[in-house]
């Protein structure tokens, strides 16, 4: 009897259920810890990916972290330092633990090494998983790779620190751009401060800019006044209900909608405009 109180006998049934609970508990704990870390291990939304990368979520799912793109980038034949004859550092880097990018995935930082937009785009066809999708940079008509179709990001100008906006002559970004006068053009404006000089303001055209970052690299200010952001961050979205009445093709959308319900229903549409506009500001 005394022995039994020391070590009570456990029935098979109880052992089964305790074991089950034990395993389930450890499993749930493991999933929670691991999933929590994995979620935090995802890249910063400011990460710049190689050309032809899938959208960030799909890219993270698909990339197997093999580094074939980065190897193709650094070992391309034209990537040679003219002075030493040695290869220059590659554009694409494989993220390490301290980078704000999921470990082992390729990214680039144009301030260090921009993308030189190789005509044969060596980094894309080597991708074994399809995380870099050649279709995204293939001209559907000719079936050939077209570096103009790359969309790695978008150049954004900060007019506060861009010295061209101050009236100082600088066209470093304009001249560095591989799509000269297409992705960045110079807008001439009168400088009212002097009355006799011109502003030559750089303007980026989002429909042409590939986000290669040569402009960011070339910028002369202490911290670049033109820089690349991922397009999801850099671009807004007007929404389907704005129609360009002066654009025949866009105007067509209105005709397509005739007969359908075109009224917007949201929280404020249940009230009359007089009511919600006169209610005053709420903070």
């Amino acid at each position, binding site marked *: 009897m005394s022995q039994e109180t020391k070590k009570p006998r456990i029935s098979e049934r109880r052992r089964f259920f305790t074991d089950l609970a034990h395993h389930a508990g450890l499993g749930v704990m*493991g999933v929670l810890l691991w999933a929590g870390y994995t979620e935090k*291990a995802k890249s910063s939304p400011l990460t710049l990916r190689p050309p032809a990368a899938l959208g960030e979520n799909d890219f993270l*799912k698909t990339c197997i972290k093999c580094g074939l793109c980065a190897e193709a980038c650094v070992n391309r034949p034209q990537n040679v330092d003219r002075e030493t004859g040695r290869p220059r550092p590659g554009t694409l880097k494989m993220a390490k*633990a301290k980078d704000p990018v*999921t470990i082992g995935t390729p990214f680039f930082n144009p301030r260090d090494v921009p993308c030189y937009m190789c005509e044969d785009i060596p980094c894309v066809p080597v991708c*074994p*998983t399809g995380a870099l999708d050649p279709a995204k940079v293939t001209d559907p008509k000719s079936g050939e790779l077209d570096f103009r179709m790359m969309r790695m990001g978008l150049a954004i100008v900060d007019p506060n620190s861009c010295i061209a906006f101050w009236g100082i002559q600088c066209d470093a970004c304009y001249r560095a751009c591989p799509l000269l006068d297409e992705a960045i053009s110079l807008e001439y404006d009168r400088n009212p401060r002097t009355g006799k000089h011109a502003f030559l303001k750089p303007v980026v055209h989002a429909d042409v800019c590939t986000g290669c970052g040569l402009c960011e690299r070339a910028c002369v200010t202490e911290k670049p006044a033109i820089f690349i952001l991922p397009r999801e961050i850099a671009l807004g979205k007007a929404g389907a209900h704005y129609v360009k009445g002066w654009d025949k093709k866009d105007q067509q959308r209105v005709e397509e909608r005739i007969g359908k319900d075109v009224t917007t229903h949201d929280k404020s549409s249940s009230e009359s405009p007089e009511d919600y506009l006169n209610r005053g500001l709420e903070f």
Partner: protein
Amino acid sequence: MKWSNVKYLILRRIVQAALLFLYFAGNYWGWKVLQGDLSTSMLLDKVPLSDPFAVLQIFATGATLGVNVLIGAAIIALFYGIVGGRAFCSWVCPVNMVTDLAAWLRRKLWIDRIERKVWITRNARYYMIVIALIVSALTGLAAFEVISPITILNRGVIFGFGAGAGLLLAIFLFDLFVVKNGWCGHICPLGGVHSILGKYSLIRVTHTSENCTLCMKCKEVCPEVQVLGMIGKRSEDVAKAECTNCGRCVDVCDDDALGFHIRNYLSK
């Protein structure tokens, strides 16, 4: 020290180092012998080789995959499944060098005899596989690939080390002070996948009990001692999946009681 006592150990180190060197050369000099890394490589610029576990995790995230990795994963799975067994772990994986060093130091420093025992089931690796796949599906990111010390060490050699190298030190200390053969022999889910893959492979270690003098040197060095249950009792092949075919037991045996053998499925 006799050559026959270190033969497989030295062969393994040569293979491991040569593979790392070829990977490094693939990036640094652009050699087209072995490019990429252990998650996916291109052999001679033609043949894709992929980690079947990484591919499985990517499937769990719901992504669709290119043909090259599928062919690569099939080649690897077939090679180890039919020929090599769990040889990836002891002949290819660079972490093996780290954990073998920890195990060697453990023996030399007598840590086994003074430490408090921490117990982890050797089946933890199989639970880790399941958890890794669940987490991959939940988060949309291949879960083991963001913490794998194997690819961190492999990429470190190829592309340069970062702070992730700290994880390798942690695993070294874990194996040295916490659990004997803790990482490779208990936890690593990739080892679990290769155990499952290689269970029916042709190359096995085989035991001849008539020659055995019960010196138990083999059990001292074996990283997966549970597979050597037949020592001194029965003459048979090591059949358990977790044997890594490292050949250390064959090396240390002075009585010709252990050797490599091609499993014969026909005579049974």
